[in-house]
């Protein structure tokens, strides 16, 4: 029973099946948008059968579905069981004990290459010729003068690399799971000037308490000369428990800020409605500018003892400016009870030979000049704790290195048996070469080595 399970879980065919299954499910996952709100799916698929079927099959959140996770787990089990089964043998090929010539000869491995040479040279000379082709033997057995066995290995340490590759897959997955369990991804949309010590989880909007307070000092969008966005910049300050600012920094896309293991990313931006309209005010008696005021629509503002309210005119006609300022004697009045309505006019003044237009109105001694719209920006900041990404990157570096070492270092082993030649004269050399991978290059190299030994034997 156990051995059957063991065999099943270590088979490469199972791995092939699982890999194909996971790849196919991933394809489905890219054809249907994943993790959208239900209302969005209702728009795409309607409320009919199609939606029901997709929902029931888990196709709307395929990467979190029970079968995707089960198949991935099976792959991990497959990987671990298979590696555990083959590791002891691989370990022996690297660190010994190494098998003997006769054992290898009997195995009749289909990958093996064989060669037999007869020479008049004695065993010592033969051995030195062999070593010019194969280097120093890892093991030498036998008696001086008598039959002898030599064992050579090339690159055998890299036999460990696939196991390290497999282990690194486990390390990466461990990092992913640790992050999933102990980390979070959340966001906070902050108005300029706003302070918070809460953020909201991306997946379900539940609030998270942060170990510090965060303030958005300023948000701005920077443009290239032709109007394409160059960067989105939020200046944020970190405040400690006593509301003392400990750090102020600009964050941009690709330039986050990490503080106490929590990282803040520039994720989005926008402006709140209603926007306000900015007016420059002038003292008409002495023509001096008084200042800049911003008015949100319908909000009441106290200005030099009068109450002002900005009223948008949605149905402005012709040249009419689409807003006015209503003036009230006291703040309790209804919007319709304005004592005076200030309509705006288009004027112009000359400067540097040019007519510059402006929009203005006046009330008593004060002139109001329209000077643009004020947006109340907010910045969408993503706040994340990914304390275990270091585990993932460690596993990743291990993986790339292990792949490199498994692929680019061909491993081969050689057994040589030296015995006295016919009638006790000269030597008989028998050579077996065994590659890790059955590549044409190996057999070519093997023949080259044999040729080289022959030349050595003849030249001495």
């Amino acid at each position, binding site marked *: 029973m156990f051995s059957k399970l063991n065999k099943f879980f270590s088979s490469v065919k199972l791995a092939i099946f699982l890999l194909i299954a996971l790849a196919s499910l*991933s394809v489905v*996952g890219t054809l249907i948008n994943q993790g959208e709100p239900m209302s969005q799916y209702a728009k795409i698929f309607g409320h009919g059968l199609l939606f029901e079927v997709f929902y029931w099959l888990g196709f709307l959140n395929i*990467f979190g579905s029970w079968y995707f996770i089960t198949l991935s787990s099976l792959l991990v089990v497959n990987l671990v069981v298979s590696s555990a089964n083959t590791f002891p043998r691989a370990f022996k090929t690297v660190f010994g004990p190494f098998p003997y010539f006769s054992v290898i000869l009997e195995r009749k491995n289909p990958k093996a290459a064989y060669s037999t040479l007869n020479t008049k040279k004695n065993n010592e000379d033969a051995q030195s010729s062999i070593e010019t082709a194969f280097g120093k033997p890892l093991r030498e057995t036998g008696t001086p003068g008598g039959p002898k066995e030599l064992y050579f290995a090339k690159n055998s340490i890299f036999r460990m690399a696939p196991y390290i590759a497999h282990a690194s897959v486990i390390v990466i997955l461990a990092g992913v799971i640790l992050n999933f369990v102990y980390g979070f991804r959340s966001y906070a949309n902050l108005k300029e000037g706003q302070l918070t010590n809460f953020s909201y989880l991306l997946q379900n909007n539940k609030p998270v308490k942060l170990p510090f307070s965060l303030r958005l000092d300023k948000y701005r969008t920077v443009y290239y000369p032709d109007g394409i966005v160059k960067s989105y910049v939020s200046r944020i300050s970190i405040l400690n428990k006593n509301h003392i600012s400990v750090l102020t920094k600009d964050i941009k896309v690709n330039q*986050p800020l990490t503080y106490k293991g929590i990282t803040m990313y520039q994720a989005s931006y926008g402006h709140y409605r209603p926007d306000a309209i900015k007016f420059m005010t002038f003292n008409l008696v002495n023509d001096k500018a008084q200042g800049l005021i911003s008015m949100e629509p319908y909000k009441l503002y106290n200005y030099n003892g009068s109450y002002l309210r900005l009223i948008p005119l949605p149905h402005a006609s012709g040249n009419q400016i689409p807003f006015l300022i209503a003036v009230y004697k006291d703040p309790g009045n209804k919007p319709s009870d304005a004592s005076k309505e200030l309509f705006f006019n288009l004027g112009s003044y000359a400067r540097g030979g040019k007519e510059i237009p402006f929009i203005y109105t006046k009330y008593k001694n004060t002139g109001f000049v329209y000077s643009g719209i004020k947006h109340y920006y907010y910045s969408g900041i993503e706040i994340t704790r990914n304390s275990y*990404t270091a585990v*993932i990157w460690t596993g990743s570096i291990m993986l790339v290195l292990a792949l490199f070492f498994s692929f680019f270092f061909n491993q081969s082993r050689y057994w040589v048996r030296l015995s006295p030649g016919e009638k006790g004269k000269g030597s008989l050399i028998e050579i077996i070469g065994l590659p890790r991978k059955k590549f044409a290059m190996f057999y070519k190299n093997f023949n080259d080595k044999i040729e080289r030994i022959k030349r050595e034997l003849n030249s001495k």
Partner: protein
Amino acid sequence: MNTIAGSNAYFLDGAIFFTISLVFVVLPFIGYFIFLFTGDKRLSRASFFVLAAGLLLQTFAFVLRWTYSYHIGIHTPPFVDLYDSLVFFAYVIIAGFVLVRIFYDFDALGFIITLTAAAALGFASFSPLAPSTIEPTMPALQSSYLIYHIITLFIAYGAFGTAFGLGILYLIKNRKESVPGKKTGRFLSLLPEISVIEEAIYKIVVFGLVFLTAGIIIGAAWADNAWGGYWSWDPKETWSLITWITYILFVHARFARGWGGKRLAWIAIIGFAVVIFCYLGVDLVIPGLHSYATPGSKQIL
């Protein structure tokens, strides 16, 4: 949207030289194609030298384009839009072939490589879908990860493209040879031994796989740095994972009993179809984080 680059940008930004280099790819294609039937080594050697000259010209064009984009104040290497990526793809597979050719006698592979490269280069040069003007880059792409991410992935794609060509040659040769009594034609006799092709497919695929793995990881590290999630199952990411799984499968198929060179050749062919879909198809079919269009929405990422 051509206000930054003037009207003579086509010369300054190197695009004209990529267009000219197309000639240096099409001529070798013709040469290699005729070579398949005549087996005239002088032809394949001439094709090789013309192709190598084209590679030099393209290298020059890249240097020009790169310096030019910094010169006009766009501090991003020229690898970001569809045009750049197509010419870079052509560049990588030509470079890959030139390298492989130095070590193996694979002249028969030349026509597939030059055909693929010419298709990519021709599409880049003449399709209105791939304008060559250097546009300012959106904030998400302004990162030093960009260049490592793209170069590693394109080296991988180039390798997989080469393996694809070899896979086809393998199947052709395997098919003809397995018919007993049939005389092998000139075309087949030019190909290396079937076992040599198999070995080359393996080596080129695993070379690509190392770079693919590194490229995906760099992408994940970049995403982590840009927006705090190393993996978001965005379609392009998912397709890169599917590509990776395909080639991991390739590597392991050898260990399964009964999976010979023929199936490996098939995986190399299918794998490249997956690569092409990941590279171009995803953008055309499913827009996502990586699409080559400029985003119009407020959401930055």
